[in-house]
Every structure is written in structure tokens, then in C-alpha cells.
């Protein structure tokens, strides 16, 4: 049975394109964005409407996008370019400006190419490759300051400290609520599965933030009020999803894992939990926001050379231990080199910790579903029996 609050969220998402159109008629400015480090709080504080853009899972958009960008770009980037080219997605069509950050260099290219062909007003936010270095922190502060000026030009006003403080508080609350949703998954007490939690997270891309937070609160209250599930399915395999993003609309892998009795108990995805973690805006200023974004879990498209200080790896390892996951499924999208080139190293490092990893390399076509199913099933068989001395694996 669908939770009442979940249904409300779904209904709100359905109605949102109409609301956006209405807001535009009233003179509101819509800022679409793609990235990981776009400081949405600043957009919100200026009275602009932020909407996170991009969808996955549609092969047709991938093909369309490749006509503008390249068939060598990752399927998500191609699909996004397809969306820009087609211009039927209500959020892209409605966006008065689009912002891209350079954490993923292919996203930067997407920004350049969509700007040229689709003539949208486009903003870029520079991102350093090594967030830990002191010069990088300073550089990023300047980038965010510059980005803010561009947003202020767009809004026709300056960021007011009170509004910024309010927006920061609202976003902190949203992140905390999402963390709590994931916590229920972690401890096996969630009436929602991972896919549904993802749906709730993705709803936040589009909805009015105050309304979204209110709906999240309703959802959490409803979950808290439900009786605790006491008998977990002993046949299921507990999995953490890692790797390339799984964008709204891309359900191939999660559906398949579910069908073969897998339970995704958490993720460390750009499109999932990660944006809600490790964000502590101590100082409610533009600089404070810049520092907090720089100090969050580094995006997987940023290389890490310091093995002793690999926050992303430590976070994934900790998540496996915390959730008692039996393994990691590492999802890599075709031509997402930032994820695919990490695979061997990550697999070997996790193996040393006793954590098995299966890489699933795929794109948005349906042609590889059965091949993936076979691989996932085999992986689950191994995980189920790996501690059984009577079974050779």
C-alpha cells in the first residue's frame, strides 16, 4: 500500500510543471542546473526558482543528444543534450537560465554545447579538481562569489543576509530529512524501498522547497507512526549502489536488482544520498556556503590521489559496515570514464576489506537487461553462500 505522503509527493510532482508555468507568468525566473556543487541556497535566496535538470533511461534522447554532442559522451550527458535539443521537458523549456558546474568535465562540455545550439542563458561554476588543497578552497570561494554576481544580475537584486540564512536553514532541514529517510532503509525499518526513496529525493529537484520540506516532514511522520518491521526477508541480498549517477527515469538496474531479490540499502550516488551528506554551513554567507560545498563528499568525477585521505572511499566502506550490506554494485554508465577508470582500483581496495564489488557497465538501452540479470544473479549467489563452508564459491 502506498503511503499517503508518498502519493502526495507524486501528485505534487505531477502538478509542478503547471505551477512553474504559472510562476513564470507572474514574472518569476527559473534557473535550471546540472551538477553537484551548484549552491542552490543562493539561487533560492535570490527569489529565483531552482530546478535540477536531467533524466536518464531514455534511449531515444541519447541518440538525439549524440547528434549535437558526441556518441563518445556518457549516456546521461547525451540524454540531457537530447532534452535540450528537443525542448519538450517542461523544466528545460521553462528555464530562463541554466547553470552547470565543472565537477564533471562532461557536464561542462554539455553546458558549452547546449549554450551554443539551444541559445539558453548559461552560467558556469568552476570547480577545482582537488578540493582538499588550500589553493582550491580559495579558488572555489572566488568562483562562487562570481557565480553569485551572475545570479544577482539575473535576479536584479543582491542577496540579502536574512534571506540567505533562511534558505540555508531550509536546505539543511531538507538534507537532514533525506538522511533520515535513508536511515530507515539502513536499519531495515523503511516501508519504502530504495527506488521509492530515490523518487522522493528526485521530487526535490522540481518542487518548491518549502512545500517539499513540508511533504518530507509528513512522510517521515507517517513512517515513524508505522509499526516496525520485525521480520526481514532472510533471502534478500543487501546491496549498496555506487558509481555513476542513476538519474530520474533510469530504473533498469534498480528494477532488476529488486526482481532478483536484492535489497538496495543505501547508495553513494550523486543522484542519491551523497548531496545530503557532510554539508555543514557554519557561516551563513556566500563564503560559508562555498566552503561547505567544497568540504562535502567529493564528487566521483574529481580524482583523488591521496589514498590516506580518500573521503569517498572511506564513506563507502563505512556505509557498507553500517548497513551490513553484503556487497557493492558499482554502476558505470557507458563512457563515464570518471567511474569506469576507478573500477579496478576500487574493487581491489574493497576486496582487501572483505567487501565484494560487481561492476555493471551499461547504458539506457534495454538490450543488455538479460546479460545484467545473469551477472547480478551470479553475484547474489556468491554473496548468499560466501560464508557457508559447505559451498564452494
Amino acid at each position, binding site marked *: 500500500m502506498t503511503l499517503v505522503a508518498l502519493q502526495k509527493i507524486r501528485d505534487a510532482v505531477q502538478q509542478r510543471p503547471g505551477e512553474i508555468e504559472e510562476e513564470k507568468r507572474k514574472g518569476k525566473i527559473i534557473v535550471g542546473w546540472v551538477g553537484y556543487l551548484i549552491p542552490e541556497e543562493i539561487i533560492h535566496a535570490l527569489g529565483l526558482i531552482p530546478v535540477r535538470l536531467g533524466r536518464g533511461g531514455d534511449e531515444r534522447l541519447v541518440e538525439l543528444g549524440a547528434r549535437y554532442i558526441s556518441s563518445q559522451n556518457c549516456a546521461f550527458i547525451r540524454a540531457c543534450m537530447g532534452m535540450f535539443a528537443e525542448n519538450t521537458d517542461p523544466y528545460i523549456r521553462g528555464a530562463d537560465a541554466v547553470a552547470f558546474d565543472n565537477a564533471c568535465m562532461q557536464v561542462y562540455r554539455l553546458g558549452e554545447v547546449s549554450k551554443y545550439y539551444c541559445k539558453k542563458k548559461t552560467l558556469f561554476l568552476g570547480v577545482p579538481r582537488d578540493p582538499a588543497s588550500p589553493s582550491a578552497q580559495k*579558488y572555489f570561494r572566488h568562483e562562487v562569489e562570481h557565480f553569485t554576481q551572475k545570479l544577482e544580475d539575473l535576479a536584479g537584486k543582491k542577496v540579502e543576509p536574512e534571506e540567505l540564512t533562511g534558505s540555508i536553514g531550509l536546505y539543511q532541514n531538507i538534507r537532514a530529512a533525506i538522511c533520515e529517510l535513508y536511515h530507515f532503509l539502513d536499519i531495515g525499518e523503511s516501508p519504502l524501498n530504495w527506488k521509492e526513496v530515490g523518487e522522493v529525493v528526485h521530487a526535490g529537484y522540481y518542487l518548491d522547497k518549502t512545500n517539499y520540506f513540508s511533504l518530507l516532514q509528513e512522510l517521515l511522520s507517517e513512517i515513524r507512526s508505522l509499526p516496525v518491521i520485525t521480520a526481514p526477508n532472510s533471502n534478500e541480498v543487501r546491496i549498496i549502489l555506487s558509481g555513476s549517477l542513476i538519474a530520474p527515469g533510469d530504473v533498469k538496474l534498480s528494477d532488476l536488482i529488486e526482481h532478483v531479490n536484492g535489497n538496495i540499502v543505501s547508495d553513494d550516488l550523486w543522484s542519491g544520498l551523497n548531496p545530503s551528506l557532510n554539508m555543514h554551513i557554519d557561516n551563513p554567507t556566500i563564503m560559508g556556503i562555498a566552503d561547505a560545498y567544497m568540504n562535502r563528499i567529493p564528487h566521483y568525477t574529481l580524482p*583523488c590521489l591521496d589514498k590516506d585521505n580518500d573521503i569517498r572511499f572511506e564513506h563507502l566502506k563505512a556505509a557498507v559496515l553500517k548497513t551490513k550490506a553484503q556487497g557493492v554494485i558499482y554502476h558505470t554508465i557507458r563512457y563515464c*570514464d570518471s567511474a569506469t577508470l*576507478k573500477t579496478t582500483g576500487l574493487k581491489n581496495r574493497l576486496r582487501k576489506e572483505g567487501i565484494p564489488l560487481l561492476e555493471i557497465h551499461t547504458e539506457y538501452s534495454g538490450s543488455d537487461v538479460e546479460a545484467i540479470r545473469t551477472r547480478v544473479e551470479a553475484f547474489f549467489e556468491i554473496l548468499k553462500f560466501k560464508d557457508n563452508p559447505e559451498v564452494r564459491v
Partner: protein
Amino acid sequence: MSTEYPAFRYPDEIKSLLMETDDLVFTDGTRVTPEQIWHFMTVTGPKRFPFAFSTNPAFGHQLSRDVTLISGIRTTYLNMTGIDRLRKFVRNGTPLVVVQGGITSDLYRAAGCIPVGPMFIRGWIMNTTEGREYNNANLAGAALLEEARQNLSFECCNLIANIGLLKTRNLPIAAIAPCLCSRCSDMAFAVEAYRSESEKIPSYIVDYPSNYEWGEWRVEFLKEELHSLAERLEKISGKEVTDADLTAEIKLENKARALSRECEQIWWSGKVPPTNSGDGGTAHLGLMGAFDFPVGNQILQETRDELQTRVRNGVKGYGLVDDPSRLFICGSCVIPNPNFVDKKGGVLVGSDDAWSCICMDVKESGDPYENLAEAYASLPYERSTEERAMWTIEQVKASRSDGVVFMYNWGCNYQSAVAGMITDIIKEETGLPTITIEVGELTRMESLEQSQNRVESFIEMLRK
């Protein structure tokens, strides 16, 4: 069925022309006489590197048949003996540092290091066995590519994949320290992949402020990154980098860049192309200095003088048709097979990749780090794609190109992404025809028919 092609030989008649040239004088005082060069190019070289003398038409790096272009022969000598100089550096304890194109070698060399590109890794391994014939070299190269990809990812581009060989091979590399620039997205991940499982070679990434617009803080950031690079290189080489050292190196390399620009301008000014495609272009020599800038500059001066004479006398490069179709190449790391282009009625007049660095001027007074940072931040190839396209148009016009080929490697997410956009801008602004070609043949010597077929069709279209 295999076909044996006869090995190329320099005709004895040209020996006297070579004998009229000066000794090559290297930084360590070594002198190489024209007699020694002749002996190498006709006796030692063919024994050590038989594949390099192959006349197999598929071979993209065939020696030029323009045997009266003496500076061309001397350049080839420098290229072929580069491995010997690198071995000497290793013996003498001079650190070799893996870099990538995009920024120049000034700082690395001022710090007492020798920068080498990813292709060096493969080249070093290939050269551990001398006497390879064409087919043997071809198969050995393919096997190395496979090994490299296994170590990294099958989606890595052929060039950057070479970094993967460091996981399984022992090579005399003291550090991996590339600047990321905006040209390539795989290098960072390749270094990370190496680092995630090995600590044999220290690795460091020089960050680059990829962004759409100019900003003072971006130059400042790059300057700090260069300072940080200098500190790391100092630890590797044990040599302190003083401002005076760096300025001296900038002056030396500025001279190389200026000479290379001069050569190109003279080449472009000719009513007919003064050399064929294989001999054209000095950007790599101006950029890397054949691992020894003073001797590189000596050759660049000779090239400039010889080009001037040819242009003055209306000499056309050997092997070119009358009025060949002039092709400007965009992209990175790859160009069409020069011999093939010439045979089909074209000629390569330039490429944007290394040329971007050659066009860079570094100020010689003031803070050398700031000067380098300002120059690097303004590199046209690394700027926003729209700016890069406008700069490319200037080069296309200056070189009187008839068409533009944007070529990139399979697995290159980053150049491929803007290939269509750049060629569309060029088409719109110049009206010239353009073509985008994806190739998978870098480091390969066979199965090139598909890309050659496309190049040929493009040239045919231009010549109609």
C-alpha cells in the same frame, strides 16, 4: 597474404648536402658531426629501428621522401635518437616526469626534470628491444595497448591508456605530474587509477581553472598550483628552482616558440607548400625541444632558413600534387596519415593542438610564475570552446586552408564533445567544408582503412 615493402634508404647523392651543415651541439657539450648523422640515418638507424624505415603505405610515420630538405633529415635524426638522450638522462640521475600536452615544459626543466608525454611510456618499452621490423612493431604495440587498457579501462583513449602500463612495468619514471588543462578528461582518472593501487611513482596533478570566462583569481590559482608543482619537482630532482632559473628557461623556450611560429608563418606564406605534410609543422620540436632545447633551437633555425629559401624559389614539397587541397586539423593527439593525405591530393597545413602552446607568449620580466600562469590561462586550446573556435578560424584563414578536419581518438570524451560545435562555428564563419572523424588507430599501424577512406572522400570533395 603479406606484402613485403622495401626499406627506405637515403640516396648517397645527398650526403654531400648534409656534410655542408654544422655539428649538432647538445647542452652537455656533446657534438654530433654531419658524418655521424649520415652514418646513423643510413646504417645504425635502419638496424636499430627497421620499422621506422618501412615503406608500408599504412605506416603513418614514414620517413619523408623529400631528401633534399636537409633540416628535415636532421630533425628525423633528433627524433630517432631521442630515446638515447632519455637513457642518458636516466643514467645521469635526471628525473623523467610524465606530463601531458597543454602546458609547456619550462617549469619542469627549470626544476631539473625532463618532461615526457604518455607516449614515452610505450616508446620506452618498445625500444627495450631493438631491430623490430614493421609487423613485429605493430603487434608489439597492439599488445601493449591491450595490456594498458586491461590495467585501466577499455574505455580509456589509446594515448592516455599508456599510463596503465606503469602498473605492470618497471620504467625509469621519477614522477607523474601532468597539468590537467581543459584538453583531456581521462588523464586525471588514469593517474588516479594508477595511484589507487601503486605507490611506486609519486603522482601529482596540476589543477587548471577550466571555465568559461577570464578571471584574475583563476590566474592566481594556477600560479599557486605552479608553485606547488615546483616544490614537488624540487623534492624529486634535489634542485632548487630559483626565479632566475625559471626565467632563463622561459627565455630559452620562448625562443623555441618564436622560431616555430616563424617557421609556420614562412610555410604558410609560400605560394605553394614548401614541404610535404610529413615535413611540415615544427610545433612539437618547438614545444618539447627534442629533450634538449639548445639543439632543438639550432634545428629550428636551420628549418626556418631552408623554408625561406624554398619559399623564395617557389619550391614545392616533394610528393605533393599541384595545388593540393590544404587541410587544417583540429582535435587532439591524432592527425591523418600525412603520406596518405599527400598521395590523395591534399596537404596538412597545421593543427591546433601543440600549435596553441607555440602561439603562447610568456613575459620575460617580473614574477615568472605569474607570467607562466597568465600565459597558460590564455592558451586558446584550453579556453572556452567558442573562444577556441574563433582562434582556430584565425589559424584556418592564416594558413589559407581549403577545409578543416576535426579528428579525435576513440575513447576521448572531451574533444569529441565539442567536435561538432567547433566545426559548425568554423563552417558558419568561413564557409569552408569541415569533417569530423573518430579514429582508433593511435599506436596502431594497421586497419586504418575506415579513417583513410573518410579523409580521401573529404579531399576528393574539396578537389572537385
